[in-house]
């Protein structure tokens, strides 16, 4: 996926910009990260939520930020021996070619992956207790990430607690993951909205939401709806996983 940026001093693909900045062929201080951030946010709004495409530019933008931050610090005295050997042009070319090849193969792998997923096997009976085969009409449907985020933004909009200065992290995602795990183990399933109360601070809400996404990613929990527009229910997938 090609991601182009447009700045005062540079116009073109983002990876090249990062590379040029790294090689100090472009002065990173001439590039306004605000612009890049704005452009990125605009894209997100235009493209909707497709995590894979959206996440790609992030490490690159992060690298630019890091370069800039490092540039602000006084340079440490150089120690002669650990100086990087300047890379010859041939070596650079060889590396680029090598990387190019891997990119091609990665594309191929992606096609193989898609192809293989056109084939279905019988479900592993003992291994996946998921998805009991019932009549289609009353099968709860999986809730998409976009819907979850929509539901969560409603929660956030109701927040009444004022924002305070952050002193330390009273809640961590790890803690909340643990909490939710216990909750799910006991109750098997709970309403999405039950997870949040308006007395909680925005930070705690966000941490809880992140913990929920983490559990879904780990396939510990899943979000389902009994029917369209019904309440979102978070159900445990834990049983059987233990064996």
């Amino acid at each position: 996926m090609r991601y182009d940026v447009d700045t005062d001093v540079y116009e073109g693909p983002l990876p090249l910009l990062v590379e040029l900045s790294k090689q100090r062929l472009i002065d990173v201080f001439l590039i306004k990260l605000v612009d890049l951030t704005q452009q990125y946010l605009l894209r997100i709004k235009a493209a909707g939520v497709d995590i894979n495409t959206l996440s790609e530019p992030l490490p690159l933008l992060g690298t630019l930020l890091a370069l800039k931050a490092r540039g602000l610090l006084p340079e440490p005295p150089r120690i002669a021996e650990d100086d990087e050997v300047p890379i010859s042009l041939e070596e650079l070319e060889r590396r680029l070619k090598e990387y190019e090849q891997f990119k091609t193969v990665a594309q191929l792998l992606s096609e193989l992956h898609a192809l293989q997923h056109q084939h279905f096997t019988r479900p592993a009976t003992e291994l996946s207790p998921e998805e009991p085969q019932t009549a289609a009409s009353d099968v709860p449907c999986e809730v998409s990430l976009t819907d979850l985020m929509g539901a969560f933004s409603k929660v956030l909009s109701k927040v009444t607690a004022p924002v305070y200065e952050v002193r330390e992290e009273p809640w961590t995602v790890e803690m909340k993951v643990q909490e939710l795990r216990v909750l799910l183990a006991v109750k098997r399933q709970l309403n999405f909205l039950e997870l949040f109360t308006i007395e909680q601070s925005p930070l705690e809400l966000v941490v809880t939401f992140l913990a929920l996404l983490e559990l879904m990613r780990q396939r510990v929990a899943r979000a389902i709806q009994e029917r369209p527009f019904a309440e979102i229910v978070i159900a445990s997938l834990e049983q059987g996983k233990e064996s």
Partner: protein
Amino acid sequence: MEEAQGKRIIEAILFVLSQPVALKRLQEVLEALDAATIRRLIQTLNDEYLTSGRAFCIQEVAGGYQLVTHQQLAPWIRRTLQTHKPDAVSTAALETLAIIAYRQPITKAEIEAIRGVDVTASLETLVERRFVRAAGRKDSPGRPFLYGTTTEFLRHFGLKSIEALPPMAQPAIPEPDESAVAAPAD
């Protein structure tokens, strides 16, 4: 044992098991038949499925055989299972995966040298999806982990073995239809 009976038994085993069944395993069950015969019988089964236009075929994948539905039927199966597209793998993760697949065993630092970026996140994703695993440690300072691909990787990418990866220099995609039908190499 009669070959016709052997063929039926193979078919039954592949029908029941949803995982790829290794040739060795089939041989253990069908004591009377040797590997070459079993392979030939699988080929016969596949030919029969093909000529009679069955909905499934036997695929050779991840060092074993498994019964899978034809790819043309995917839309209907998806509708039945109410599943969408498979979880796509991000480009970053695929690049890391490609490097591991072709250069295994390889350390994280070596992958990063090729990709030029930190690969912590994509490596984590790949380990979590069980496409790669730490397969050992390198005998160098720090004894870093060496990463390699798993059978799960072969299964999800429809590869018989790691040797079946498309060649690096001039990669070509195998014909979709041919790769669907097992053609055991003798």
